């Protein structure tokens, strides 16, 4: 049975954006630090 979500369902897009930003921001920080370290393999 398909979801009957079309009936006056609130717009979830702001919540989706917030949730992905919540987890994405620290992940980007971690990846930035990783890239900084990894480049030493080719320069160090």
């Amino acid at each position, binding site marked *: *049975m*398909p*979801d*009957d*979500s*079309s*009936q006056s*369902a*609130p717009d*979830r897009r702001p*919540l*989706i954006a917030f*949730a*992905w930003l*919540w*987890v994405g921001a*620290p*992940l980007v*920080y*971690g*990846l930035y*630090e*990783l890239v900084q*370290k*990894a*480049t*030493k*393999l*080719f*320069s*160090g």
Partner: protein
Amino acid sequence: MSPPVAPPGWSRWLVPPAALSVHLSIGQAYAWSVFKPPLESALNLDGTESALPFQFAIVMLGLSAAFGGTLVERNGPRWAMTVALVCFSSGLLLSALGAETKQFWLIVLGYGVVGGIGLGIGYISPVSTLIKWFPDRPGMATGIAIMGFGGGALIASPWSAQMLESFGTDHSGIAQTFLVLGLSYAVFMTLGVLLVRVPRTEKPVENAPSAFEGVQVSANSAVRTPQFWCLWLVLCMNVTAGIGILEKAAPMITDFFADSSAAVSASAAAGFVALLSAANMAGRIGWSSTSDLIGRKNIYRVYLGVGALMYALIALFGDSSKPLFILCALVILSFYGGGFATVPAYLKDLFGAYQVGAIHGRLLTAWSTAGVLGPLIVNWIADHQKDAGKSGPSLYTLSFIIMIGLLVVGFVANEFVRPVDARHHVPEPKEEAVDA
């Protein structure tokens, strides 16, 4: 606690960030090494003692995932994420108290035992829910979550190091770092607790099959099937082979090129380790998503077969070419990550979505076994080769041959995986499965 059912119009794309908020937090465990040197000097410990909290945490991860899986299925993902949040954060807070009062046993109890329970319950908490929300792409969905566990260390490692630099590396500075971590992770994981929902129907996606279509097997029945134990062997062999590189990555690349014109410095070796972490993470999402297209059995053929080939290339030609050595190691680590991330979807294919979280929890004992086996093989052999007067790549040749053998064993075990016999199937799984 009844599972939180999604209201009408709830987006399934809210579930992966909920899962990630938990996995990115508990992945902190792999950044434990940051705390080892300051703990050793502040509390007068040796290397073996300072490793105890981490070792306890990994053992408790395996045990709580194995024994708590059925509870997670029964009480739902919000309950599981709440337990994970409370255990993981209070474990860090207990560690803060232990560091402040210089009571190391409190750190072992807090981080290792209490926090370890949080790791195990947190690790399996979103798996079953993600598979139900993404019946069309279970590999990708679980890959995103399990990638978070790899990503957790990338965040926690530099962040903890910076805090220790600010607060100081004495017992009080360590305590403050644990305190900030415990409180921050409690806030961060709250998003997962608040957002996670189970689908309202068995078919949350209109044009995709339900996760409950086909064979459904309970966790208790699954562990009695040869398929479960074949997969256990596959996971154990794949993880052991990955740890074989991961455990000694920095000394390995240094030893391989010690006598060549392209010698590797300590900072370059650290860069190599960082690159391996990236490959591990990328493999989790990349290979697991690929498994949705080419099938679970085929992707494990690649992990195990091509993995063995990569080890053979390193053993035969690794010392003659640095790019070749690095490339092969990266591929092996991507397969290591991919093996972790693809296994929930493989379990769902074989046993259905009915109690896949609980079955996954029990399968994680293979990880605990490999966590002991992998480092043991590589370290023991390298030490003995060194005692025998060997140096350079020859320190690792025997280890690599053993890894190839283990991967071949895993490959054969994967070939033995067949559909589960009808006598293990649950007769009417659908109603129970929706409740779970």
